[in-house]
């Protein structure tokens, strides 16, 4: 498998009057062609910021502070807006969390999908309507002939998500970043969408970065999973291994929530995610960590390779 994407020590900061928010603070990973990488974490872990950074959609006050994003060997952090424009929608596309707000209410769905073709192939929007109908059939939209003329407010959440997916796959991109694509939908639709993403991967060979707070879902569909906490990557490994033998205490906590046999009533880790302006010293998880040691509050753990997996925890260092 060839490598499509390599992220090296990426830092994305928000410079706010109240201080600097270190939303992504030194994350490194790679992604192979055709692979599905799951990214999991609580809200506020920096996973959405990571997604925006990869798609070149960060806006002030967010800035890439340092690090590199190598896409087919090209460093995306050095691209200007016009180069990005050629890439976005064509090579890298994105599916968003809340389909209703990510569609423009004043245009028909078909128009909005056709805009992708317009942007990359030129010509008038109207001449791409047949292609859009094909896409709708591909994403299993009911009644595509009529739906291209529907406005977003006339469609259900599931339909709208299919519209967004249509946009994302229109140009058969190398990389699809899906940021919580299913969390706003109900369970049956969720399953259909997941199934659809799998089929798309099979058909187009695109790589998918699938971001969600729902670890159970990732365990089902992702090839590998990256766990994020407070802007840092805490663990990265194959789904099966991660499920069977989680290394980081945070991963363990997350998994324990999933396992019904533990019969833990309150299904969460005590405490809440720390402030990213003034994160805890040392390991950021240590205030909530059941296995915390005194040095955890002083020493920042490094990425450590353990059996082909990466973990960042003092337990596994030296």
């Amino acid at each position, binding site marked *: 498998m060839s490598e499509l994407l390599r992220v090296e020590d990426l830092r994305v900061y928000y410079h706010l009057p109240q201080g600097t928010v270190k939303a992504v603070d030194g994350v490194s990973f790679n992604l192979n062609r055709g692979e599905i990488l799951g990214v999991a974490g609580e809200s506020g872990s920096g996973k959405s910021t990571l997604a925006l950074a990869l*798609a070149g*959609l960060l806006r002030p006050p967010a800035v890439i502070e340092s690090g590199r994003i190598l896409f087919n060997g090209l460093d995306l952090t050095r691209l200007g*807006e016009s180069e990005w*424009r*050629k*890439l*976005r*929608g*064509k090579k890298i*596309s*994105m599916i*968003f969390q*809340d389909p209703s*707000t*990510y*569609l*423009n*209410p*004043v*245009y028909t769905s078909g128009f*909005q999908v056709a*805009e*992708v073709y*317009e*942007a*990359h192939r030129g010509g008038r929007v109207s001449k791409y309507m047949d292609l859009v109908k094909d896409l709708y059939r591909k994403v299993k939209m009911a009644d595509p002939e009529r739906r291209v003329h529907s*406005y977003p*407010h006339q469609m259900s959440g599931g339909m709208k998500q299919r519209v*967004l997916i249509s*946009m994302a796959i229109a140009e058969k991109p190398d990389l699809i970043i899906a940021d919580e694509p299913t969390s706003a939908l109900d369970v049956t639709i969720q399953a259909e969408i997941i199934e659809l993403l799998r089929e798309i991967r099979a058909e187009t060979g695109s790589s998918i970065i699938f971001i969600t707070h729902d670890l159970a879902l990732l365990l089902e569909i992702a090839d590998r999973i990256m766990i994020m906490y407070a802007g840092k990557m805490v663990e990265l490994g194959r789904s099966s291994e991660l499920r069977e033998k989680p290394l980081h205490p945070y991963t363990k906590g997350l998994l324990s929530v999933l396992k019904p046999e533990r019969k833990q009533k309150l299904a969460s880790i005590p405490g809440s995610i720390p402030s990213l302006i003034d994160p805890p010293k040392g390991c950021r998880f240590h205030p909530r960590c059941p296995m915390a040691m005194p040095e955890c509050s002083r020493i920042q753990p490094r990425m450590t390779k353990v059996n082909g997996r990466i973990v960042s925890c003092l337990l596994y260092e030296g």
Partner: protein
Amino acid sequence: MSLANYIIYRITQAFITFLGASLLIFLFVRLLPGDPARLIAGPEALEEDVQRIRVQLGLNKPLYEQFAVYMASLLRGDLGTSIKYGTPVLDEILTRLPYTLALAFTAEALAVAIAVPLGILAALKPRSLVSQLVSVLAVVGASLPVFWTGLMLIFIFSVELKLLPSSGSGSPRHLILPSVTLAFFLIGNLARITRAAVMESLGSNHVVTARAKGLSLSKILMRHVLRNSLVPILTVASVQLGALLGGAVVTETVFAWPGIGSLLIDSLFFRDYPLAQGVIMFTIGAFILINIVTDILYALVDPRVREILWKTV
């Protein structure tokens, strides 16, 4: 429900409002203290002459009788005869109308042409020097009394520089100072609303989608930002225009502009009941009309509004 039906529905509604309003205004205008006959004759006239004028004008009749007469002629499309001028009210309004239309539309067009680009600029580059100066100027414009701005402009451009006529009407040159004065006052609000609306659109998620598609900046701005900011901008612009059509009283007075506003003030201060009532009815009519047009524009801009409006029918 179709557009045509909707328009018919709105016009029927407007007609009912109009009839109700005419009763209200009839009473309102006539309950104002004052005696048109005495105002015509002047304080120095003898009471018996004044009384004779009252009889001639039918002002000695009971109010309900006057109202019956008024409504009867109104339904025939006759707005009555001006007490002061002795000419049909409609004629008086129609003489002034072109001036009001010219001033209102020029001022509003000028305001939109200046305020909307400035508002967009301020939204796109909130930290730039230009945008800050713009917001300061806009706020100052809305905070200066209109007569002040007007007199300043007259003294700078007419008295000192002798570039433009100080007052009056008749040529496009006469239109410049009054419309600039009004526009200066209108720009503040309009620019601010534009800035807010554009900022809101800019921050909305569908713009992120548009960027993710790889659309060019100009297309994002035109299609996904401006179009979506149009409703609030239209609202403010139409309310402003509606108010201007009712006459910009102060501006018209300062620049001796013979529009509807000065006619209203004149008729009110002369207690010229039929004329005042006619002008107010016209103002309300213009306002309702503008509302209908604005709602239709909303519907054209935003399909959701279309559905809600159509449904209310």
